Every structure is written in C-alpha cells, then in structure tokens.
C-alpha cells in the first residue's frame, strides 16, 4: 500500500455542497409526421415552425426525431415556404 493510497483512503473528499448530478432522462423522441399522419406543406407555416429554431434555422434530425424521408420532405417544404416569404430565412426570436 503506497503512501499515496494510504492517505487517499483516510481523507474522504468532502464537497462543500452535495454533488447531485441530475441525469437528464432522454425523452423518447417520436416521428411527429408519422404519428400525426400530417403531410408537411409549405402552405401552413405554423406547422413547419416547430422544426425551426429561434434563428429560423432547420433543426437537425437528432432533435426533430424525424425519419430521414420525413426530415427531407419537411426541409424541402420549409425551403419553399421561405421562398414565398411565409417563413423567414434568418430572424431572431422566431417563437
């Protein structure tokens, strides 16, 4: 038992405040398009709004939880809506 181990055992590390790392339970993401049977459409931008972040950028798949096919379809509709000025290209505090 080297000296180092010796005193490590004797003096337990006491934190000033109890260390409680709350483990963020990853909520089960689901494919909203499949679940609600909605077809993304550039004509109703409010539905597409939920796939944009505050700056108006398209959220990645790992956040939207969509399947590859639906993510691409949503992205295409968002780009069409942007072309028609129904959705902004860049904004702040979109929500």
């Amino acid at each position, binding site marked *: 038992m080297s000296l180092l181990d010796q005193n490590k055992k004797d003096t337990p590390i006491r934190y000033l405040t109890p260390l409680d790392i709350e483990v963020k339970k990853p909520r089960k993401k689901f494919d909203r398009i499949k679940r609600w049977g909605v*077809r993304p459409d*550039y*004509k109703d931008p409010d539905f597409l709004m939920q796939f944009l972040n505050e700056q108006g950028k398209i959220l990645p798949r790992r956040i939207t939880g969509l399947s590859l096919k639906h993510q691409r379809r949503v992205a295409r509709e968002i780009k*069409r809506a*942007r072309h*028609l*000025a*129904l959705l*902004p290209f860049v904004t702040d505090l979109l929500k």
Partner: protein
Amino acid sequence: MKNQYETVFILTPVLSESQVKEAVDRIRNYILDNGGEIVWEEDWGLKKLAYPIQHKKNGFYHLIEFKYEPDKIDRFDLELKRDEKVIRHLIVKLDKHAIAWNEKRRKRMQQKAESPEGEKEEQKNENA
C-alpha cells in the same frame, strides 16, 4: 395528358383592390385560354412578408390549383416572371398524394367555415 399543378404568387401591395382583381383575372384567363382547367382557388389577401421583397413589407397572396399541359408550363412560368405586378411566384407539380392531401385540406377548411362557432366553443372550454 394534363398534370396537376399548384401555384402561389404574391402581388405587390401598391395595387388597389381593382388592380389586384384584374391582375389575378389576367393570370387565370391565361391558364384557361391555354387549355388549362382550374381546380381550386384561394385568396389569402394582404399578408405580412417574413422578409422585405423589393423593399415591400407585405403583399397579396393568391393560390391557384390547376391542370395544365406539361410542355406549356414553363411558358406559364415565363409569363409570371414577366408580369411586374407579381413579385414572387412558385409553381409546384402535384403527385397523387399531394392531390389527395389538398382535397383533405379543402374538406377541413370547408368544415371549419361551416362550423366556426363549434370551433370557438371548443377552444373556449379547452382553455377554460
């Protein structure tokens, strides 16, 4: 064989009510004259643009769903480009799923139109 298309175009807000109607009629007649057939039309009226186009903050939106010959569609696209009143337009070809979806959307809008009170009551007691 005619394909089904859907076009949404924005007219500059500077126009008066009659000019807007006349511009839309001109486009509609262009479709009808060239062997097109209009399936559905929607007028979204004056809406605020998400970003200024040609320094204008809002515009008249209009949607036309129509059947048209595929080889004449880019001529129609050119027509919209040439029209100065139209500041932005988009023509989309509809496949059968999109056509079915549009019909469903129309039914839903009609139901909403027929029972506006039903809708409001639901919302009221939802948040009540």
